[in-house]
């Protein structure tokens, strides 16, 4: 009898509480800072070029070999604007192959690569698997919007 009244009170109190569910595709819960989605490249706004010099450290460390990096001479170094002798030419990451192990981030000498800690790193469904091979501009796009606060292990 008392339990009946107690349970009625309980359901009414949960009714008055805020719902725990949210309207997912139109509303997002905040992602933790150290959330580990797919790796992206970071953009150096001071010199207006990428941090990445194309040194192949991440490519060699990658256990699933999902990266392809090429390096070129940095034109801005010749002009004296930048201290980077070399800069990356092309950079491909196959997100379909990446296993999000964070090793590329840890081996990077220039803190040029970071794990995407936004929802953009999770909502990546595509029709064709080939669309998951990201090129240089796609990898840099998020950093260029300044909307990401990358968490880079120090």
């Amino acid at each position, binding site marked *: *009898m*008392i339990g*009946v009244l107690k*349970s*009625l009170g*309980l*359901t*009414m109190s*949960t*009714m008055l*509480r*805020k*719902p*725990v*569910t*949210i*309207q997912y595709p139109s509303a997002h819960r905040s992602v933790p800072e150290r959330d580990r989605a797919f790796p992206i490249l970071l953009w150096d706004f001071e010199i207006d070029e990428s941090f990445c010099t194309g040194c192949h450290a991440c490519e060699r460390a990658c256990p699933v070999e999902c990266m392809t990096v090429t390096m070129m001479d940095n034109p801005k170094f010749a002009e004296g604007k930048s201290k980077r002798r070399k800069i990356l030419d092309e950079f491909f990451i196959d997100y379909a192959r990446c296993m999000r192990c964070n090793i590329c981030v840890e081996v990077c000498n220039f803190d040029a690569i970071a794990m995407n800690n936004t929802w953009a790193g999770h909502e990546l469904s595509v029709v064709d698997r080939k669309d998951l091979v990201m090129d240089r501009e796609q990898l840099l796009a998020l950093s260029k919007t300044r909307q990401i606060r990358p968490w880079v292990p120090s």
Partner: protein
Amino acid sequence: MSLLAWGLFGVDMNVWLDAFLRLQLVVVVMTVTVMFLIYFERKFVGRIQMRLGPMRTGPYGSLQSVADALKLLTKEDLRPSTADFWLFELAPYVTFIPAFMTLMALPFMEGWGVRNLQLGLFYIVAVSGVTVIGYIMAGWASDNKYALLGAVRSAAQLISYEIPLILAVLAASMVAGSLNINDIIYLQDTVPNIVLQPLPFVILMIALLAELSRRPFDIPIGESELVGGPWVEYSGIRWSIIFALSEYALLWGMSILTAMVFFGGWEWPFGTRSWWGDFDFLYQLLLIFVKSFLLILVVMWVSATFPRLRIDQLMAFCWKILLPFGFLQVMINGIVLMYLKDSEVARDIVLFLTSSALLVAMGYVIYWATRQAPREVRVGPEYALGSISR
């Protein structure tokens, strides 16, 4: 007099045409209410479970019922090849028509119902009991063991709980001294029946839950064990007639009846005359709707809270608790009304005291019964147990 008191909207017309137009009005209001109730229940239960409920169709999902109705109406109307054609096709109507007929005798406003029956209460109780025939028809005709099991269970449950329901309504009508719902409402101008008769109100609400096969008493339709009871094989429009319309129409009709019999309908708390002048009828309608929706809210709240009873618990609760206390209330009412005819105040006080005492006693009996150690039941023949220790 309000605008709707004579004829229909003050127009004199043929009796049959008048009845037909009133029916159409009730049908439209009922359908809209049912659609609202379905949406409201989904939202309310969602919030109780800390979900959002329907959100996508329309602002805050408010068009969900419309979308559901469209989907159900355009869906294929399936019939199992082994089903009994006529019984299967007609069962939804047999469940729906009694639910609809209960709305015929309800005075929604002062002097405005489809018909004002002298034996309105009797008629409603009698007619709403016919629903069970539709359940049995559906269960039998589906040629499905789950449907048949559900039908048999609903027969047992609905017929059992009909009796406490009738006793509760009877106790209230004894106080009023009439079976005409208009009279019962008029007599509650100062004190509503809920004060005089709290026990019958509680019995009525419990019996209502069982009559509607709602959650603590949803043994006939239990999704987890009977996959939907008598309606397993139904789909599309027939399913929507059974489930959406008759279920919720009966819920709405019975809540309005409860609001009228126990909460003074449009009479209590401010009397029929209000400051709305010519638009009194709108105020009365509003009052009836608010009261019935509060009751529906309670029904939904209870059904969202409790788990399903076992069949023996359900039967024991009806026959061992609700029924004796219902009879006791009726007998005490008879004695009180017989011997305290002269003073209305004394009669009201004694009615209130006896009924609340009975309510407390019923609560205590339930409390005591749930505290008892479960009775030991021998599950097999005695020789199978090895040694007979008890």
